[in-house]
């Protein structure tokens, strides 16, 4: 691999890492697109997968069950009416006052 291509790949990884964690500004996005055009076939999602691993690491002890009614709605392709829940899981008054 040429030093120039290697340098481009390192920079692409840096930009993809920045994108996966905080998102990119317009100039960084343009730079990334330009570099990706020069390195066809680059795995565009590689850093998003790594960031996803961090998210997965945080759910280990916090998994809940999908509410059965919601699971059913998804399975049959329906959309449940909003605000039908009055369980303790319903939004707090503070949440309801959010814009």
């Amino acid at each position, binding site marked *: 691999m040429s030093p120039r291509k290697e340098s481009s790949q390192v920079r692409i990884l840096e930009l993809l890492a920045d994108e996966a964690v905080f998102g990119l500004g317009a100039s960084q996005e343009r730079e990334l697109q330009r570099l990706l055009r020069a390195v066809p076939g680059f795995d565009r*999602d590689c850093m998003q997968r790594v960031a996803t691993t961090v998210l*997965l690491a945080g*759910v280990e002890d916090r998994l*809940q069950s999908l509410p059965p009614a919601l699971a059913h709605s998804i399975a049959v392709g329906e959309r449940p009416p909003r605000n039908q829940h009055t369980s303790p*899981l319903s939004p707090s008054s503070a949440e309801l006052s959010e814009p």
Partner: protein
Amino acid sequence: MPPTTLERVAAGDSAAVEDCLRKYGGLVWSLARKFCANYADAEDAVQEVFIEVWRHAGRFDPEVASEATYITMIARRRFIDGLRRRGREPNAAPIQEEALVSEAGHEAQTEVREEAARARHHLRQLRPEQQQVLELSITQGLSQSQIVEATNLPLGTVKTHARRGLMRLRQLLEADRDASSPREDPS
């Protein structure tokens, strides 16, 4: 090797949809409750995530990622979009309290728990400051400026920890995958 759940979904197997919801519905729901402002938004978000999952099931490649990672990646994109639209912090309601009401723990989620445990093992190999920044940004959904405030680190340092931490984590995951993939028969 038998087809994965997502490969069966892509092939139009309706039973696979229910299998997928049973295995990964709790994972997506747990994340939605963390990142969405309220219960109704979480319901909508989970529906939208699974519509995306059904739509893109054919693009899933088990050589590249696990199903849990693939589905979580789709979910994360949807939740980040929601956070940016709202311009606010994720739901502050502690998920542990809800788990008392809706205890998961059934067998269908074993794969997800194992995947999460592996992820945590790799994350714990990063430097503590890299772990902290990545967890604050990715797990807690904080912005750069919120992390600067929470850690008292300069913005440039926060960015460097995030970038280096993620790149190191990528190396660890690749080494793990190389070590666990079956060796080719040289004959």
